[in-house]
């Protein structure tokens, strides 16, 4: 690295001097890089001629930003990080870690006070500070809440990491209830509590859980069996269209079509599996990618059945196990049956628990299968195919079951997706979706269910939160649409995680076999063995 060599050479220079120098270099490099990218823009004038529009201001801001960040990094952050590793000469102890210095009781109390105060006055913020400042106040409030929550998590960190799975499931089960209760308390009425919960349950909860389920399904193929599949979204599409078509044409219920969609997706998993049996690694990846595109193109072009790019709308909702319906017009509409106020939130909350159940089913099946011969064969297959065969494992059926099982869960998720949206079109099943699901599996640490769930929450939750960052409009102007930057965030997060943890959030594999130490080894046995 350039700056390391630099540091060796001018040992005597103070960090500030070095920072200034590095900032100049950084500025020069970024000026060269961004001169054409940002400094100039091609545009059309009124008579449709191509003209160059200079954007010197923006270029200056970007270059300036690079210089400032570089300066602070070299002058302050680097020496700080170096100090963290130096032992205190007198006490012989490492300095307090950043975390223990960052999370302190007074700060926690302050954050709590700020958050509560700003929550109490939430309604009148605009009136007091004006809309622009109120935007910042809301952002500040969000930071305070995050800090308070993070402090609590930090305080209980050993307990949390010891019981992560159980706690995680508990939080997920309680989530919609907590959201409704909190919003009811804030807004003062049950109805608006339900109404307000829509966004949190649907955009965050359901959206994240769909990706968790998809990633867990793909994990069987990629993480366990080691078959790099870039076309996973095809099975999601098969499940979605299976439900959409059969439900709209035959009127069958979701509960019958869910297994049907799973079976159809599994069937297509086997169809994909056969031709790629002999392929591995990059070759397999390319063929599966092509398979995903073929399915999408079929959906677009087979208009008589799939209605082409226009998609299928009016897909029936899921019923409450056939007992109650979520359609306002039905006689057994849930609000009529239970005699409560009408709200769309019931359906969303029901869907939330449905996808939570499906996702947990995926996890449960994965965990069970890993302990069974077929699951162990998947993992062995990932490691050494030839060794597998000479141990008596039929690698053909092993691969096909991996494809089929993974595809089946993709199909379940797909039919859920169709029921939730009420509309499907080929646009939902582009390659980018496969890439996102695969990225979640890789980020989570291939094979680790917990890691994958965390990765999905961070990635999908992160992109959803971007939508909420209205205050950014105050900074970048009213035309700024933060969600357009979600792929940028995705990419940045991937790079950071891969640098920091090259094997993903949870890189280590849980072993599945243990020694069942028998109480007493029979004496005849010890005699027989060679010692």
């Amino acid at each position, binding site marked *: 690295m350039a700056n390391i060599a630099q540091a060796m050479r001018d040992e005597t220079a103070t960090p500030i001097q070095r920072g200034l120098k590095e900032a100049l270099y950084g500025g020069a490099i970024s000026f060269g890089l961004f001169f054409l990218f940002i400094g100039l823009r091609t545009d059309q004038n009124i008579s449709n001629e191509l003209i160059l529009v200079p954007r010197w201001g923006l270029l200056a801001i970007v270059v300036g930003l690079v210089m400032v960040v570089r300066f602070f990094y070299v002058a302050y952050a680097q020496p700080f990080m170096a100090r963290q590793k130096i032992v205190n000469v007198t006490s012989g102890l490492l300095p307090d870690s950043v975390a223990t210095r960052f999370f302190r009781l007074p700060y926690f109390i302050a954050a709590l006070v700020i958050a509560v105060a700003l929550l109490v006055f939430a309604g009148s913020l605009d009136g007091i500070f004006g809309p622009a400042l109120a935007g910042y106040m809301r952002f500040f409030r969000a930071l305070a809440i995050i800090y308070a929550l993070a402090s609590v998590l930090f305080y209980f960190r050993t307990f949390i990491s010891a019981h992560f799975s159980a706690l995680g499931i508990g939080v997920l089960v309680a989530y919609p209830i907590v959201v409704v209760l909190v919003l009811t308390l804030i807004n003062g009425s049950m109805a608006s509590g339900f109404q307000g919960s829509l966004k949190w349950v649907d955009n965050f909860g359901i959206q994240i859980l769909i990706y968790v389920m998809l990633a867990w399904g793909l994990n069987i193929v990629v993480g366990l069996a080691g078959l790099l599949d870039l076309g996973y979204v095809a099975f999601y599409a098969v499940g979605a269209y299976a439900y959409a078509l059969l439900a709209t044409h035959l009127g069958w219920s979701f509960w019958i079509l869910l297994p049907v969609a799973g079976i159809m997706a599994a069937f297509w998993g086997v169809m994909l599996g056969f031709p790629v049996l002999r392929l591995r690694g990059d070759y397999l990846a390319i063929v599966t990618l092509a398979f995903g595109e073929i399915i999408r193109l079929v959906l677009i072009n087979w208009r008589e059945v799939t209605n082409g790019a226009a998609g299928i709308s009016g897909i029936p909702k899921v019923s409450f196990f056939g007992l109650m319906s979520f359609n306002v017009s039905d006689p057994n509409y849930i609000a009529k049956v239970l005699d409560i106020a009408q709200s769309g939130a019931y359906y969303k909350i029901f869907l939330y628990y449905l996808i939570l159940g499906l996702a947990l089913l995926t996890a449960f099946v994965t965990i069970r299968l890993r302990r069974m011969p077929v699951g162990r064969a998947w*993992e062995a297959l990932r490691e*050494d195919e030839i060794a597998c*065969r000479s141990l008596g*494992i039929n690698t053909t059926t092993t691969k096909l079951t991996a494809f089929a099982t993974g595809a089946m869960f993709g199909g379940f998720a797909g039919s859920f997706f169709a029921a939730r949206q009420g509309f499907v079109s080929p646009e939902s099943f582009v390659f980018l979706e496969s890439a996102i699901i695969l990225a979640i599996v890789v980020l989570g640490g291939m094979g680790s269910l917990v890691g994958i769930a965390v990765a999905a929450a961070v990635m999908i939750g992160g992109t959803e939160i971007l939508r909420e960052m209205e205050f950014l409009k105050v900074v970048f102007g009213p035309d700024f649409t933060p969600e357009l930057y979600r792929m940028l965030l995705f990419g940045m997060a991937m790079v950071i995680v891969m640098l920091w943890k090259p094997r993903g959030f949870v890189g280590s594999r849980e072993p599945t076999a243990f020694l069942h130490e*028998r109480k007493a080894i029979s004496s005849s046995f010890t005699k*027989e063995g*060679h010692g």
Partner: protein
Amino acid sequence: MTAARALLDIKGVETYYGNIRALSGVDVAVNEGEIVALIGANGAGKSTLMMTIFGTPRARRGTITFAGTDITDLPTHEIARLRIAQSPEGRRIFPRMTVMENLQMGASLDNLKYYDEDVEKVFTLFPRLKERIAQRGGTLSGGEQQMLSIGRALMARPKLLLLDEPSLGLAPLIVKQIFDAIRELNRTQGLTVFLVEQNAFGALKLATRGYVMVNGVVTMSGTGKDLLANPEVRAAYLEGGRH
């Protein structure tokens, strides 16, 4: 030789890598209850023969019969299910799986009735493995990996055990221990063993019979004692080696 009743009977086998012929008409027979050693220079085709028995690569000519079944064209996993186990060249253990899981993979085709018992047997044979029970296969030392590979093969309760250079990378004491263990398994359980060895002296001393392979053909065969005494064998494979 009692070729008609041999447990493993290899007749006129030719194996090719692309267009290159690695085995040109090999005849080898391994009778039930024997320890048979195959020796030969580097690149003679010994490992190729071992792998051809398992059908990767397949023999282009000739037949291989095991316990009366023609296995020449059987899929590899079905050959293994006839209870032929192998500790192949390069060990081929599963690097990300623990020692315990590797052993379990060896047993996976059998019913698990004898599982606990067999695991204990392997650990009695290689106590070193028991100390490393939860360690990942890939992080074991070379010798430990060799032990694991042999242990995994034994977990299948094989009728015939194929060992490709079991002494590779092991300390002399452990080599002796492994050879003793092979003899013990052969004597007490009647396990039939077909092994390839560079350590010709040790292998021929251990073996009931032996074969010498040169450039893809068997040039000599006989009892272990005879081969050890044979001046040609001595000159080519023993002089300068350990005695």
